[in-house]
């Protein structure tokens, strides 16, 4: 990379594109009609509940991916 100077503009643009992934948890959790339903159930959990639990992991995975992809830039 470029020594002590800040990262070049192209690297910053690339980093911004990865940041867009962080919008996904907001879309999929704040659009409530997507998951306010009973079925399909999983291990006795209505969809409304296991969908939210699933998103804990998805959101952490997405954030982890963005972390890995942006820290070298």
């Amino acid at each position, binding site marked *: 990379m470029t020594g002590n*100077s800040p990262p070049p503009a192209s690297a910053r643009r690339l980093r911004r594109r990865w940041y867009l992934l*962080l919008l996904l948890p907001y879309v999929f959790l*704040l659009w409530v009609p997507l998951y306010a339903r009973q079925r399909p159930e999983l291990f006795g959990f*209505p969809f409304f509940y296991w969908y939210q639990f699933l998103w804990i992991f998805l*959101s952490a995975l997405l954030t982890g991916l963005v972390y890995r992809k942006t*820290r070298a830039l």
Partner: protein
Amino acid sequence: MAGVNAPATAVFAFFIVLVAVVGFFSGRWRSGDLGHIEEWGLAGRQFGTVVSWFLIGGDFYTAYTLIAVPALVFGVGASGFFALVYTIIVYPFVFLVMPRLWNVSKRHNYVTLADFAQGRYGSHWLALAIAISGILATMPYIALQLVGMQVSIAALGFGNTAWPLVAAFLILAAFDYTSGMRAPATISLIKGVMVYGFVLAAVVWVPLKLGGYAHIFHVAARTLALRPKPGFLILPHGQFTAFATLALGSALAAFLYPHTATSVLSSSSGTVIRRNAVLLPAYTFLLGLLALLGYMAIAAGVSVHSTNDVVPALFLKLFPSWFAGFCFAAIAVGGLVPAAIMSIASSNLFTRNIYRPYLRPALGRAEEARVAKLVSLLIKFGALAFVLWGNATYVINLQLLGGIWILQTLPAIVFGLFRRWFHPLALVVGWLAGMAVGTSMAWSQGIATLYPLHIAGFTFTAYAAIDALALNLGLALLLTPLLRRLGFASGHDQTQPADYEDPVPALAGAVALGAAPQRGGA
């Protein structure tokens, strides 16, 4: 309750004493000069990923959370799960915003969010606004931690006797005074292990006793529907906006509180904060399980006078006494960590952003730390007096208003971390309007956080904090160009764009792309 539960009390006492000892000795841990506010109030900004994980987790998921989230789900059903959504979507926000706050604060020795507002906008009025929001919102929050501790002590069979709470409180005050932020950091390790222990045991053991999750959900749905004010297992249409705005508003406000900002600032680098944005959802998973306890309590047929007693009543009913005692100790320790950080954070705000600029400009470093320690004691005693002689409902209402107040600092802090576009005076006016309107909206509904807004024949019931924030931002957007045109000085910005970025390691030029050097410690 008749008589003291001896086995539960013995286990409880053991853990409280353990925590007291650890708290006192933690001042020596990676010791620095505790006569300096960055050492006392931020523990020298040196916590790595693991300690920060325990500290931020132990700070953010408070004792009141442990009591109130299951109580809410017990009381209203599905809409209580906004807390789970909120604690998921908070972390992408933390990932993007908080490392910038850490970087600029490290570079300019900012200890509070109001310090940042002062440095960025050169306006002590704006800094005062941030400090007032922070202190007002935090004081009732401290009192609520004591309420959480009181609930767990009462469940041991002490009823409403004051002395056990006073004893726990004195321990808190003493270790906070002597050890500063190092005390909650070490105690948060114990808290993390205890809380994980009790929640995991509960979500495995209780369904076994109650006939499985499918049965628990089934009974909960039936019981909620039969209530005088029916609750729902699946969120109904009419509650969608309320649910989404509560989740969003809470998530945006969560890390603008003085205590969460303080624990973030005490970590050792922006990278530590980003890693924790990835790892802290493990605590959110715990919160989700905890919320399920509300349904378990319904299925177990727990009946209580106050919903705050739901969790203790469930444990007393289903667990052996010694394990119930362990759970109550976990809740009480769970209150010590955030209460300590909250009182440190609000005394930092008072000392640096009110006392020094307005009352004593010549404040020296040693005196600053001494004043902060004293003020943190005063704040805690205020909270204790409130809990002992005040009214718990009043405390809860103030804390609900606190969320509305804190969110009004978002335009100055969050936007300020990316661009300095707003005029500081426009931000102050927006803040005032947001505070006033948000408070009166909540007040008009009998201190409820949801407000039915009527627009063009439609009614949108939403979190009042979000409505107030929209007004706040709108005013700041309109007034900024106006104030500039009228020639109002827009203050001096002491920060540079590079201050917000991670420091570039000196050897970066010699390292190939993709094999970046380790920044920060683990």
